[in-house]
């Protein structure tokens, strides 16, 4: 498999935009989607579900599922550590 540079760069940019938008919008996302998985495309929540597999099954039916970022939004604001 050869990675197409332009396509890979575009996919990184899309994922980064979605991730930065999620980080910036976390407080409002917690209120609306707390303890749910959200599917974000082009900096918009396009779907959500309590179950990851159920959401993923719907996203896979879209025309460009690879451009969707799926993230879990906790209702509580956790202190994270690894």
């Amino acid at each position, binding site marked *: 498999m050869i990675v197409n540079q332009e396509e890979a760069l575009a996919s990184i940019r899309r994922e980064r935009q979605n991730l930065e938008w999620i980080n910036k919008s976390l407080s409002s996302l917690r209120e609306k989607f707390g303890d749910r998985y959200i599917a974000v495309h082009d900096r918009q929540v396009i779907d959500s579900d309590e179950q990851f597999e159920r959401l993923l099954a719907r996203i896979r039916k879209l025309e460009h599922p690879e451009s969707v970022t799926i993230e879990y939004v906790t209702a509580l604001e956790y202190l994270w550590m*690894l």
Partner: protein
Amino acid sequence: MRSRLVLGEKGIEAVAHFTCPSRMISKALHFVIDTGSELSFLGWKDAIQVGIEVENLPTYPRPVAGFGGAAEAKHLIDPCFVYIDFDDTLKQVELPNGMLVYRPSRTKTKQWRIEESVSILGRDFIRNSGSRLVVDLANNEAYFEG
């Protein structure tokens, strides 16, 4: 050249294009940069999303220890590649020994809890990238340089 990292709730994150050619996997994902982790991990959620049948992977022979206790990890043995954007140029970083897939703890309902799942780029990635990791939290900035 620099590759800018994202400062988020879970830590310092790199957005990268992940490929595993032998399994036809190719997708952009975000990874927490973890200098405390010897190896890189795919979170359970990301592994499922890219189409890996996690249950069919062999178990990694060493237990994985963290603050949450020891856990079992699966081993995606195939060589994987992580591509990072350095000023609009892709830099390929090979992970010749593949990635581990972290198995989260079970809930009382015996279903896997995947909500806390995060993917991690560990010291193997940082070493193989040949880049310097620069973290300047006082100025709200983090990046790979090299």
